[in-house]
């Protein structure tokens, strides 16, 4: 009985693994690739917007390049993560620069 249960469990586990494998390996479908491409374009737009107000961060461009490289290798999920990070940096860089538009002297300087 115990051996039977063990065999049933093993077969179930193998079947489950086999069914998941196509899902994990299938990140390079056309729709996912298109979505990753859109995210990269959005990140690039955010980077340019930050650059337009001298607010671009050091690594944003490099991260976008890495996203493109990962997408070219078929690593769609990784590409998406990188694109999301780059987009976030572009948005934050823009917000930072805009928030600093007016000169604010530190209070520890006494006039």
């Amino acid at each position, binding site marked *: 009985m115990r051996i039977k249960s063990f065999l049933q469990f093993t077969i179930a586990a193998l079947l489950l693994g086999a069914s998941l494998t196509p899902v994990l390996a299938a990140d390079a479908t056309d729709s996912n690739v298109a979505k990753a491409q859109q995210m990269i374009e959005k990140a690039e737009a955010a980077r340019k917007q930050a*650059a337009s107000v*001298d*607010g*671009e*961060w*050091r*690594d*944003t*461009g490099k991260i976008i390049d890495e996203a493109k490289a990962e997408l070219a290798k078929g690593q769609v999920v990784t590409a998406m993560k990188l694109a999301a990070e780059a987009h976030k*940096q572009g948005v*934050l860089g823009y917000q*930072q*620069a805009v928030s*600093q538009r*007016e*000169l*604010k*002297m*530190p*209070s*520890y*300087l*006494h*006039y």
Partner: protein
Amino acid sequence: MKHFFQKLALLAMAGSIAISAQATTPDEDLAAFRNFFKDRFPDVPTGEYVNGVYSIDPVGRENWEAIEEFPPYEPFIDDGRTMWETPFANGKTYQDCFPDGPAMESKFPYWDKEKEMVITLPLAINQCREANGEKPLKYKKGPINDILSYIAFESRGQITNVVVPSDDPKALAAYEKGKKFYYTRRGQLNFSCATCHLQNAGMKIRADILSPALGHTTHWPVYRSKWGTVGTLHRRFTGCNKQVRAKPFKAQGEEYRDLEYFLTYMSNGLPLNGPGARK
């Protein structure tokens, strides 16, 4: 009533962190700058700040004084002297561009009314080269540092005296742009130049002590042990911006020239003592 006072307290706290800039003159800025360091380091004479972090770091100073016995920037001075004395292909020399040279560093940076821009010494050197049919030198690494080292060495003892002419509002605008750059937070780490070199001057950043901004421009170019060579002030600006994870600007571009204009003004009255050696 309790909520009203709570809100008032919050507003007061927010106001104490940063205040919008009111119009101040460059001399008022300089006075506030100096007074900050007088209060922060009351035992350090103003003239000592030309030695950078070694004005406030006694252990580092001991090492630095040992290095200065055989300064690592000496070969660069010699190479710079050779450059100065070697005629261009057309027979002219740097002396023809700079009759007061080589001891002329105190004349820079200055506001050029005709060109409506800040002229720095490296920029002027390349203007001279191009006017005489020579290729311009790169602004961060390489032979620009040789000739700058020679000029800095010959100019030792001259007093920093940047002028913001009162008859040209564009000069003041350039100064103000440099000042704005200095106090603007940037990069992923959200630091301004002032965050490190005023607010936290004397504090440690990892294993290093942050140098005070007063006197920052007197000792360039600098042999940095980290670089293993002499580098320019704008190379350091680039590095600092990268360190706070901001995309750096172009060496000798408008942003860094205006920044140099402001920062050098903040060292007015201090003697030049370049080239320097630093960690």
